[in-house]
């Protein structure tokens, strides 16, 4: 007997109550009650969002223009920004972070896609290979990074990587103690830890490509590479560009890799990242306001990336 409104909402349960005189009022009351019930279910999550997400967002911006000393908070204009930009590590941190993001895009973005293409072709051992690729994603990052730090990146020849290089008569490396290898070493560790998730997402996208497209391309005489270029990539374009964006945002927040692998700053600041600088200022230099300002700068840079991304993808479609 319930009637369904245009919104598909069960609105009226008639029968028990005589309708005509108080009809409008009772409908309004029911609407109100429905709203209140809805809010009652929402309130817990909304309070958590408000206190731990929405409010800190605003608070971060406010904090970046204030300075708190001995419990007294004053407005200081752009002072915090000036101080943070003049930090000797500021530009190094940005350079390192961009370098990491770029390297991670080359390695950590292309590799999972081709691994997914490869895995999608196999008719055997599929489950096993998928579990293997995803296994490192489940490790606590701290555990995986201590493994890399102590056993893989050991600068002597006792380390796993140097032993392998030596076995093939290749030059060994000092890894984290060399200023040039620090970043590539962090990208390798980070890609190993994280690529499983991307591979599985690509695999799901690949499975949605209609087989007839490959069929048609093959009949037209397209080889394997042409089929990848003309069928696979266009068909997965949306997910590919979205993952690129997500990866840039994730890698720009590089933090735990330098902290554990390079004890934070690394040799001659070669590992300092923007996120690490935020942490440094906030919790070691007693400068929460400067750290907040750097956070706002980071937000601005990432918003810039997102803007470019939206413009680019909008043009493509």
């Amino acid at each position: 007997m319930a009637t369904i409104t245009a919104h598909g909402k069960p609105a009226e349960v008639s029968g028990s109550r005589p309708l005509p005189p108080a009809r409008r009022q009772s409908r309004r009351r029911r609407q109100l009650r429905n709203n209140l019930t809805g809010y009652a279910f929402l309130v817990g999550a909304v309070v958590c969002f408000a206190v731990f997400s929405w409010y800190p967002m605003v608070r971060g911006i406010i904090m970046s223009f204030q300075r708190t000393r001995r419990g007294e908070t004053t407005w200081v204009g752009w002072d915090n920004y000036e101080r943070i930009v003049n930090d000797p590590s500021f530009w190094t941190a940005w350079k390192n972070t961009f370098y990491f993001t770029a390297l991670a895009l080359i390695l950590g973005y292309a590799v999972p896609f081709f691994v997914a293409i490869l895995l999608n072709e196999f008719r055997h051992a599929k489950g096993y290979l998928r579990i293997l690729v995803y296994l490192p994603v489940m490790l606590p990052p701290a555990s995986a990074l201590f493994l890399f730090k102590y056993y893989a990146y050991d600068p002597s020849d006792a380390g796993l990587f140097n032993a392998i290089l030596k076995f093939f008569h290749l030059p060994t490396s000092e890894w984290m103690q060399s200023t040039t290898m620090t970043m590539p070493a962090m990208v390798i560790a980070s890609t190993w830890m994280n690529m499983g998730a991307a591979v599985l997402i690509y695999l799901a996208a690949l499975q949605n490509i209609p087989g007839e497209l490959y069929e048609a391309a093959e009949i037209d005489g397209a080889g394997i590479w042409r089929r990848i270029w003309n069928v696979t990539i266009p068909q997965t374009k949306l997910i590919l560009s979205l993952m690129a964006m997500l990866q840039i945002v994730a890698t720009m927040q590089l933090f735990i890799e330098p902290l554990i692998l390079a004890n934070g700053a690394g040799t001659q600041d070669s590992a300092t990242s923007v996120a690490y600088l935020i942490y440094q200022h906030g919790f070691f230099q007693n400068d929460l306001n400067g750290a907040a300002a750097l956070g706002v700068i980071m937000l601005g840079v990432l918003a810039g990336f997102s803007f470019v991304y939206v413009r680019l993808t909008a043009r493509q479609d």
Partner: protein
Amino acid sequence: MAADSGTRTLISSAQMRRGRGRYIYWTLLTVVVVVFTLVFLGPLYWMVTGALKSGQEIAQTPPTLWPEDPRLTNYTDAWQQLDLAKLLFNTFYYAFGALVFQLVLDTAAAYALSKLRPAFGNVILGLMLATLMIPAMVLIIPQYVTVIDLPILHVNLLDSPLALWLPAVANAFNIFLLKRFFDSIPEEIMSAAVMDGATPLRTLWSIILPMSRPILGVVSIFAVTAVWKDFLWPKLVMPSPETRTVSVGIYAFSGGTPMNVVVAAAVIAAIPTIVFFLIFQRSIMSGLTAGSLKG
């Protein structure tokens, strides 16, 4: 995911079964299986066996493939010196609490947004989804300041599990997944329940939740692994040795502890997640793609 074996991919099955194609296919498959096993299982093997070696053996060149004199002392030392039992208990406790908080509050919120649809529900949903755009590192400072002095209440949540549980509830991705699943439950079922005089809570409990087991499983897995893997936030809000999580505890001890003992501790910290993964791998794999947009 299981139905894909018959569908056509980049290279046709027929081509792979015949002559040269078959030869290449099997060679490539063997190579990939071996390489992937070395790349992804190799380091784990190295970690587990490395921690069985003595201090001298680990510094030996070239390194030994199998410990010459395997000993458990590193593991027992790690267990005792780092008080791993306590750290593991803490982490389990936080993960379990985060799971309960997220299941109760996020499910209720998603239910309200999907089925009860109060006024301005879409605005609230939009504001929640907007938080997905904000990188976690940007919020870390103001969030910390908020937690040490909660607005209005002026309570300090430092070292209280609530500092992990409540922010975990503000997870827009979970709400999005749950809402999308609830949206797919037919409206007729809801109206039938209303007609039978069921309260909204009763409908949620007896009708919606039993139908939503798969998505609840996915959200639970995400909730537990997120707590287990998280590092910086628990490091900041759980500073005292008694309340640390296992990752933070190992990091805190890593400075003055022999490296084999640290790695042994890292192995022990990883065991619960690996076991968890092997048990739930099917749901984890499907959950990952449940939230993904079809390309």
